[in-house]
């Protein structure tokens, strides 16, 4: 049985980040020559994946049943 955790609210963050286009539509600061616009969104792939991982961990029931 799966219990939804309040941590799921964290999922609103990637939505907010993506919708707020003016916050990342710029060149500086560049990273390794890549403009902010591009590396910032690539970074959010990792952040969003980590958030899913955190929620998964929190909702996983403990015990031997967790392995499968």
């Amino acid at each position: 049985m799966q219990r939804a955790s309040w941590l799921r609210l964290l999922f609103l963050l990637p939505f907010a980040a993506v919708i707020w286009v003016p916050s990342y539509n710029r060149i500086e600061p560049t990273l390794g020559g890549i403009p902010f616009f591009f590396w910032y969104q690539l970074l959010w792939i990792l952040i969003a994946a980590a958030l899913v991982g955190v929620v998964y961990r929190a909702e996983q029931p403990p015990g031997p049943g967790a392995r499968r």
Partner: protein
Amino acid sequence: MNWTAIVVFVGLFLFITVLGFVAAQWRRGDLGLLHEWGLGGRRFGTFVTWFLLGGDLYTAYTFIAVPALMYGAGALGFFAVPYTIIIYPILYVVYPRLWSVAHRHGYVTAADFIRGRYGNRWLGLAVAVTGLVATMPYIALQLVGMEVVIGALGFPGGGWFGDAPLIIAFLILAAFTYTSGLRAPAMIAVVKDVLIYITVIAAVIAVPMHLGGFARIFAAVPPAKQLLAVPGPGTLGSYSGYATLAIGSAFALFLYPHSMTGILSSSSARVIRRNAAILPAYSLMLGFLALLGFMALALGVGSMPEFADGFKRYGPNFSVPALLLETFPSWFVGVAFAAIAIGALVPAAIMSIATANIFTRNIWREFLHPACTDDEEAGVAKIASLVVKVGALFFIIFLPQQYAIQLQLLGGIWIIQTAPSVMLGLFTRYFNSWALLLGWMVGIVSGTWMAATLDFKGAVYAIHLFGVAIPGYAALYSVILNLAVAAVLSAVLNVVASDRHKDVTLAEDYA
């Protein structure tokens, strides 16, 4: 003709052909049952599902079209990245519930679920037909990806001889899908993804080295392509366009029948949740792949005489093949092109299986032949998968490519109209089935109308609120309209003619 590349390409193709037939023996089940043939017996664990969904969602057309959009239109083409950022929270929250209820009741398609949840066969039919219609052009577009790399290998385009490689590839696809069902693309997806990862990693390392680093690459890209255009006064311009394209596409993605098939074939709801955390590895790859479009610009492949013919035939879609041809030795070009071509076969196979499942379960069995046996059902699905593929092949050979692209664009607008029934239906039974059906109709008509005003050339439609123009993805606007109609009408119908007693699912079926 590039013989070294062709030999490697054909060799890899033969290898996956063998694999496709061997797959029938893998995790053996009775292929005379629809859920064994069409869902691989719901037996795929975390690892296989990762490859299967990765191969399913990140298609050959993506590999060609996303960098091509960057090459042609610039930063706007990068919307594929925010799109793939937000699909995974959606996958995590919504679709394990679908898996659970489908597992408990033996549902193979979204329309099966609708039929059980709402007890309304017409709403089921609407969802089924939407899935069929949205998927057909999508299969055809996979062939576009394959066509481009076959052309880039040096085969002359046009005529029966020019189409021969494509037809052979499709016959192979049809044969192993028929015999092995979903097991074939699942097994081939592993090979395809390994090849794709090798190609992308090699390109992302080799090309910047060749060109002198990312800074040089971006310096060679026109400034107008490096960022979204800043909106003028009185409009949200490209900002709202970019954000709504990402969000609308994300909500639509897992409603497509082939995504659904990938989800339902996994062995538990937990497998899906885990994959929501590890599938983003593909998004990262897609992001770098998109940047290949800029690398092609920086390299100046568009003005090289040896590629003039390719660009004339395939337009910006030729930018990535040209980049690969220019940067890599022939044998590696063979590997990379094989990755793209096999990358077309995997989703095409899953799509044809998914549409065959829908036709069989939700049209043939529901309306035409309710008394059929399980064996007959699986048999019809196998035949249907062949018909679907022949249809897609005719589509691409006899109709201008533009139609496939326009229909796929419409497909995105149409498929999202099933969101209120399917996605919200997993959480609440507030909605009345007739209200949902009317909402669906309003969404389809309004979305199609918005696309029509754009001459079916784009999907970003401008609405005006309080004197501000808000250009946005027509799919998102039309589904909001759809939802509003369904919600308001449900409030009325729930009082006068509630259909909640027709729900055969229980609350605990979703956990």
